């Protein structure tokens, strides 16, 4: 095994008096698909924000491909999907994608934009302002935007939010394709079945710590639910 795609080394994070993470460590090999599970307020989003470098840990450090996350080469390899759209409402889908392909120096931008728009089935609305899109359409464009520069590390924070059944299936197919291409993927979701279908490995965060880190093949969604998310498993995390 070469350099891990991601190393999280003893991360802690506080927001004033609020504790978000305590001593979280794990590493992810290139090509792995990891689901991060946990209740509301467990610290999943905080963890992804620290990995992407937009938020600083109070303690510990993160390495992407063996180096600092803020290195420009690392940023160029990274894609983030979060609850924020990263899109301009007052621009059309095409204009948004053109803007980002210039910033990310995407080769053959025209063709690439066509491909990603087709992947998320928005080609027919490409000349419309994003402000006029429905929630789910916006989320699909967010996905297209994230995949535009062919990132090798994807951080997906509840990417299924707002998608209908058909679009969920579409995203699952897309993510499977990304996995086949050898991309490294971290996903947070509350849908244990989807997590099970997609990922090789799962990490459960509870009370600011990793309480489980195992292979999907060794478990099943119901066992995870029973163990960590049932009423007996204990109160809320926030």
């Amino acid at each position, binding site marked *: 095994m070469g350099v891990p795609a991601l190393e999280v080394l003893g991360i802690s994070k506080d927001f004033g008096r609020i504790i978000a993470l305590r001593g979280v460590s794990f590493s992810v090999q290139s090509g792995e698909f990891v689901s991060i599970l946990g209740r509301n307020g467990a610290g999943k989003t905080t963890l992804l924000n620290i990995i*992407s*470098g*937009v*938020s*600083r840990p109070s303690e510990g450090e993160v390495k992407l491909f063996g180096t600092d996350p803020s290195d*420009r*080469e*690392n*940023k*160029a390899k*990274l894609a*983030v999907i*979060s609850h*924020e*759209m*990263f*899109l*301009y*409402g*007052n*621009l059309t889908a095409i*204009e948004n994608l053109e*803007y980002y392909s*210039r*910033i*990310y*120096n995407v080769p053959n931008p025209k063709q690439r934009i066509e491909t990603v728009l087709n992947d998320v089935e928005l080609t027919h609305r490409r000349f419309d302002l994003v402000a006029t899109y429905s929630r789910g359409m916006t989320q699909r464009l967010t996905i297209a935007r994230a995949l535009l520069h062919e990132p090798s590390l994807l951080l997906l924070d509840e990417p299924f939010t707002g998608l209908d059944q058909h679009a969920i299936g579409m995203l699952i197919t897309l993510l499977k394709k990304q996995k086949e291409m050898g991309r490294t993927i971290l996903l947070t979701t509350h849908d244990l079945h989807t997590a099970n279908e997609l990922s090789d490995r799962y990490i459960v965060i509870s009370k600011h710590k990793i309480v489980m880190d195992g292979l999907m093949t060794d478990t099943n969604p119901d066992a995870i639910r029973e163990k960590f998310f049932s009423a007996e498993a204990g109160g809320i995390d926030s």
Partner: protein
Amino acid sequence: MMRTAISILKKDLRMEFRSKESILAMWIFSLLIFVIFNFTFEVSRLVMLEIAPGLLWVAFVFSGMFGLNQSFALEKENGNLRAMALMPVDGGQIYVGKFFSVTIIMLMFEALIFPIFIIFYDLQLSLGMFRLIPVLLAGTIGFTSLGTILSAVAVHTRNQQILLSLLLWPLVSPIIIWSVTLTGMVLSGEVTEAFYPLLLRVGAFDVIFFTLSYMLFDFILED
């Protein structure tokens, strides 16, 4: 190198021209300033000319504040400022892009406001007025070079506009005061030998503000 800055500039101008309300709002606002001052104070024309340069800059500065708030509200809206922090580019380039877009928009406002001003105060256009061009440029750049970085700072906070005002005014007021003085000299046709040294001083501040902001912008983008 400049690809990022140019992309950001193009994107901003495209959006600005698409939402024409802000331009119209600015224009009406300036009209109001001039009307109010013209008709509430019954002063002699001589006194009027004394305060006119100040009024002109009040209109400019308000349009500049308006433009800054607008520009950074767009970036804050959908987490785009965070997207900028994630971009594989030098923060300085992002600053340059935002700086140029904000500056061009403010200069555009000024070009729209100035004719109303000329009409209201019944000023004679003369060749000497071309000296206003470097004055407006220098004053505007001083305002926007600081305004751009301080807006990026203020965007992270809840009371964005208040913080922006608190940070910006003390730093930018010398530049505005000197610009008013310079504008007064040109409009009254009394360009003394103090004109060019003062203009140079404003220019020097512009360079300092711009360079410092360019270097610091990377830190600002992080939370």
